[in-house]
């Protein structure tokens, strides 16, 4: 267990009377890609936000490389450098060009020289086919390009693990593919990834393990073949049926 890159132990989280995470325990190993699936409001985003210390958990432990980062009062900023996060609504800073978006955190947090980080950023942009958009403002980009830029921005901090929260669900169907390609590429390079997604096909193809959340409970963890082929829980079955009925009809 202690060899896990990221390890969630009995996480609990409530908003007022609403329990959003109910005793969630899961490990993510180095280089592994774990998908979180589940209905709307099942707590996927909240769980990811908690891992990145954007929301404090009520109870339980979050271990990063065996260190409990959820100790109350723990300084979140160094932790966040190691954990990159990308959101559903692309969240680029609209008043900065793509390159400025990418350079901001390395310059202000890591205090890197502008020149060094520019080189590194351009290399990243090039790798993800965005080099020609470096000096463009986000509102001139398509959703897919914005989302890829947001991923590059997170990568520029050289995180050890990436959290991706439904990074394709605000995209037009045609643009989904290019973002999923980026995720495949990240996985191929050995990045540890935890992602919440509604793209069942993609989850099935790419993930090492899939977690099914329902109303804040982690009902089932299984390899994708098992999860999509022969889910154990009735609720998992029911959820998959409903979603797949429309997504995979053809």
């Amino acid at each position, binding site marked *: 267990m202690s060899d896990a890159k990221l390890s969630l132990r009995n996480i609990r989280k409530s908003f007022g009377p609403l329990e959003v995470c109910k005793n969630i325990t899961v490990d993510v190993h180095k280089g592994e890609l774990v998908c979180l699936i589940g209905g709307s409001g099942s707590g996927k985003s909240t769980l990811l*936000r908690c891992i*990145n210390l*954007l929301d404090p958990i009520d109870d339980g432990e979050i271990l990063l490389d065996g260190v409990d980062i959820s100790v109350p009062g723990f300084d*979140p*900023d*160094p932790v*966040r*450098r190691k*954990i*990159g*996060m990308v*959101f559903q*609504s692309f*969240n*680029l*800073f*609209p*008043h900065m060009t793509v390159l400025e978006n990418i350079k*901001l*955190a390395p310059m*202000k*947090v890591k205090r890197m020289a502008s020149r060094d980080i520019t080189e590194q950023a351009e290399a990243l942009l090039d790798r993800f086919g965005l080099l020609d958009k470096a000096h463009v403002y986000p*509102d001139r980009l398509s959703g897919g390009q914005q989302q890829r830029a*947001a991923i590059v*921005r*997170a990568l520029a*901090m050289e995180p050890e693990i990436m959290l991706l929260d439904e990074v394709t669900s605000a995209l037009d169907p045609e643009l989904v593919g290019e973002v999923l390609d980026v995720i495949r590429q990240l996985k191929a390079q050995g990045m540890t990834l935890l992602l919440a997604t509604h793209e069942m096909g993609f989850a099935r193809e790419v993930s090492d393990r899939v977690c099914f959340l329902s109303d804040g409970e982690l009902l089932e963890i299984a390899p994708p073949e098992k999860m999509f082929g022969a889910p154990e829980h009735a609720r998992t079955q029911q959820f998959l049926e409903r979603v797949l009925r429309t997504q995979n009809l053809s």
Partner: protein
Amino acid sequence: MDNTQNTARGKPRAPTRRQAYEQKARRKSLLIAAVSSAAAIALLVVLVPMAPGWEAVQRSFFNWNVLVKTFPKLLSAFTLDLILFFAAAPAIFILALVIALMRNVTRPALYPLKLFAIVYIDVLRSIPVILTIYLIGFGIPGLGLLPPWNSPYIWGSVALVLAYSAYIAEVFRTGIESIHESQRSAARSLGLSEASMMRYVVLPQAIRRVVPTLVNFLVALLKDVALLSFIGPVEVLRQAGVYKSLFANFTPYVGAAIIFLVATIPAIRFADYLMAKQNAQRTR
């Protein structure tokens, strides 16, 4: 227009049914608008002078001789309004930003600052500007300050700065709060500190977003500079008042109104334009 466009694309086409109709409709509505506007204006021009008392109105309010005699002096008095305005505006901007940030403080140790900001904003927003001007502009110099530190110009401007910094602090606060939580999350998740987030991510967007409101408040400020005349400075309103007494005629006030119209309408239009642009962006 449409035809030119077609030609420009190298495909001269006969006007379509819609184009023909729209051209006709446009002509017709232009005609109707022109005719009805002309009729309305003609009615005004013909009927108003026939109204009983129109001559009295004209003599009292639109007296050409008085206007010609007073306007140059009014205009030069207006430069004082402008000087006071340009002296106060930057101070207001900086003070308002400081107060807005104090208002937003979350660290308990800094709580007195927050408390101060809340009281500051509340008190100065609730009191009529003219009262603040009387209190500060008359009151403080009365405390035994020596010239030049008892100048009504200084303390009048201070009164305006205090009053408007409270208003504009609220504008900034609204701007800061209008920046979506997700922008903050994104900044924090990159490891930016609270202060860096504010400085590089939130404030630049917030200020940009409130620019139209700021312009409107600047227009209000320019108009309220006129209130300083009540504590001494002979700016355009007071100058008009002096002429009004002298000529027993309201035309100098009309002259002052014209000066304000010319000075503020472009700014108001600019604010409207910025606002419309932002709205268009938001709904796109």
